[in-house]
């Protein structure tokens, strides 16, 4: 029998960047028009996998923020609040359709600007973003039914939305879709390192003939965000990002009329009981911590595994690390892409060093990264003590802390023993144990025998310092309504 068959190895399978047309520079999208920033300053956005400059974008100063909020107010008073809800629905639906039709372009752009694998942008970010617009389009003319007992519901007015760099388009959609469907207008501030998909979304909205000022996009850095937070004429602020900035925003908006939704950091627990389906649990761990290079606020970054199976789980996880495909985010077979920025890479390196210094054992995928770009290999720590920094601080990278427990109550106590409470995973074959665990975990989302599953109809948000307010579902809708 033939034994001379060559070994298989995947050849590069890069997604073509042809569907994306980058402009040399982008202005701010204010009042339905592309405008330069007041003082004409710009900054560059880069591809984190190659460090190449992709485009220049306008830097919005305080004056530009003011201009955008005024435009949003005008858009609200002049057009959007006067529009019949069924007409609003058509616009939101039109945006959903455009996202679907141009999904490939959005996915490639998202991967280029942020470093995430094209497979994830294609199969998760863009379809989910479109799904949020589709879902909320349906609500626009049925809002009275969304709030049982309310005599009438009204929009809030102008919403300021600040989104992070890990899911730039998707989290923008989480905020824009319900805001518009409920009759509010929006000023969106994308993250400094990933402005391009928001700007493409603005272009799509312009092509959809969205009335001027209904969606405004201002690009910039933390100072731009701060100017938006401080603007007096906002009715609501919605922020997704770090707990540190969230606390600042809460202080800054205290005593103002601004309503606030915060979706902040996490250090979510993944509880693996000894009767769990092991092979799927390993895939669950991979999804929990290595999805999007671990740049996920609800990442399952603490694995709590029952002591009786800990050795077997670590053995399997180690073997699985070796099969994760690191590399070019635009390659269709890549599992782990580039870290979003140099600053984030440095933060991961610093926290991993602290883990080593504090005595935990590091296991890392063996992979030599390219010379250019920002990378970090899939990693996990064993021998982690609950006092270690890597057991308590959000790393926001592909680094898992493995700890053991003996009984369900100990697992739950350990899981809850942090100021965070965004998500949790429970892995067991026992329905009773799953329900018991879910009942006692302080987390906004609890997944059983799966992880990172999302749907626009399912509310997402945190307990404790992971924030408040929900996004998605009825709870998410109410956050954009005057009830």
């Amino acid at each position, binding site marked *: 029998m033939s034994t001379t068959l060559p*070994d*298989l190895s995947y*050849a590069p*399978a890069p997604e073509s960047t042809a569907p994306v047309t980058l402009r040399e520079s982008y202005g701010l999208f204010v009042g339905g028009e592309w405008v330069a920033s007041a003082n004409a300053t710009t900054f560059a956005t880069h591809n984190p996998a190659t460090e190449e400059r992709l485009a220049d974008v306008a830097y919005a100063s305080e004056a530009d923020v003011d201009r955008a909020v005024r435009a949003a107010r005008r858009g609200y008073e002049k057009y959007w609040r006067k529009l019949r809800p069924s007409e609003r629905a058509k616009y939101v639906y039109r945006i959903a359709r455009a996202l679907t039709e141009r999904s490939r372009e959005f996915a490639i752009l998202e991967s280029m600007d942020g470093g995430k694998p094209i497979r994830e942008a294609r199969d998760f970010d863009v379809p989910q973003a479109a799904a949020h617009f589709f879902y909320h389009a349906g609500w626009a003319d049925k809002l009275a039914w969304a709030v049982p007992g309310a005599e009438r519901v009204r929009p809030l007015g102008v919403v300021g939305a600040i989104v992070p760099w890990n899911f730039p388009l998707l989290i923008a959609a989480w905020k824009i879709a319900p805001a518009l469907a409920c009759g509010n207008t929006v000023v969106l501030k994308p993250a400094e390192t990933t402005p391009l998909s928001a700007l493409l979304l603005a272009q799509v909205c312009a092509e959809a003939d969205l009335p001027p000022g209904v969606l405004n996009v201002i690009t910039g850095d933390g100072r731009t965000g701060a100017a938006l937070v401080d603007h007096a004429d906002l009715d609501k602020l919605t922020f997704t990002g770090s707990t540190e900035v969230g606390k600042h925003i809460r202080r800054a908006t205290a005593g103002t009329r601004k309503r606030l939704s915060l979706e902040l950091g996490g250090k979510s627990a993944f509880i693996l009981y000894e009767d769990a389906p092991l092979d799927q649990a390993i*895939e669950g761990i991979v999804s929990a911590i290595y999805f999007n290079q671990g740049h996920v606020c609800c990442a399952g970054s603490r694995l709590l595994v029952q002591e009786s199976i800990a050795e077997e789980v670590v053995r399997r996880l180690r073997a699985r690390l070796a099969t994760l495909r690191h590399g070019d985010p635009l390659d269709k077979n890549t599992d782990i892409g580039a870290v979003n920025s140099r600053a984030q890479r440095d933060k991961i390196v610093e926290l991993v060093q602290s883990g080593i210094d504090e005595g935990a054992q590091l296991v890392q995928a063996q992979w030599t990264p390219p010379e250019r770009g920002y990378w970090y290999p899939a990693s996990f720590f064993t021998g982690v003590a609950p006092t270690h920094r890597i057991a308590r601080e959000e790393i926001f990278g592909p680094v898992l802390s493995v700890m053991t427990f003996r009984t369900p109550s100990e697992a739950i106590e350990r899981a809850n023993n942090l100021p965070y409470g965004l998500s949790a995973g429970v892995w067991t074959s026992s329905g009773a144990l799953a329900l018991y665990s879910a009942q006692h975990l302080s987390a906004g989302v609890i997944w059983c025998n799966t992880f990172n599953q999302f749907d626009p109809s399912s509310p997402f948000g945190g307990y404790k310092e992971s924030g408040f307010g929900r996004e998605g579902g009825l709870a998410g809708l109410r956050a954009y309504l005057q009830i």
Partner: protein
Amino acid sequence: MPGYARARAETKDMPSRVDAVMLESRASVLAKRSLKADAKRTALDIVVACMDLTTLEGKDTPGKVSGLCARALSPAPGVSNVAAVCVYPSLVAVAAAVLRGSAVKVASVATAFPSGLSPLEVKLRETRDAIAAGADEIDMVIDRSAFLSGRYDAVAHEIIAIREACLGVTLKVILEAGELGSYAAIRRACDIALGAGADFLKTSTGKIGVSSTPAIALLMCEAIRDHAHRTGREVGLKLAGGIRTSKSALGYVSIVYETLGNGWLRPERFRIGASSLLDDVLMQRAKEASGNYSGAPYVAVA
């Protein structure tokens, strides 16, 4: 440890717990891998070299089987032979006569294929007859009636009995996964067959609606991987039923490649049982070489 005792010990160690959501999600990622250029050419060559060219119909004749064997020996100009030809026991002698002295094996289904519902004595007799007529490989079906009524011991005992009748002959154990009702049951059947001494696990007879799916293939790969880890014995995987296009075959190659590794991507460890798949693989292969997809008239069928 005797095979059956080992089967019991293994299933006790590793209870058959499988969750559908993550299994299917991982299988779907693997089945959608993008194989380009050299990777595609290599994978297509693997598919041809690991193919069990199959005809299992009541209307099979010596002429049909001879033609199939000729195609197995030389699928197309410049393409080397497939792994085996798979036929019913009555036609083993015909296939053996054509394939004698070649690298192509003669595989025969046996044990009251496809239902498996005959007395063990009949199954043993059929197996011995097929081997006597020249079969190098036996594709047996498990007794799903026993399995689904919870008589796992009976399933294991029967595999062990057939195993003993297959001295020097490769034994593939068909689980008929689509009839077992759940992924957990399929995993249990895998562990029983692995412990009872199967040389290959095989997905399906190809005679039912659901035969091979990416999730079933992944689940069986995981069972084989775990068995190899525990015992050091490397059992093969045979996928059969409903695999008609190169694209789906390459998806399965990716599943095996990323779960079991290159060590399994050769005829001793991996087979795809198919009748019409070869046509599309040869056309895809020609397309990789010439840049053009030729179409059915340009591939010699059997």
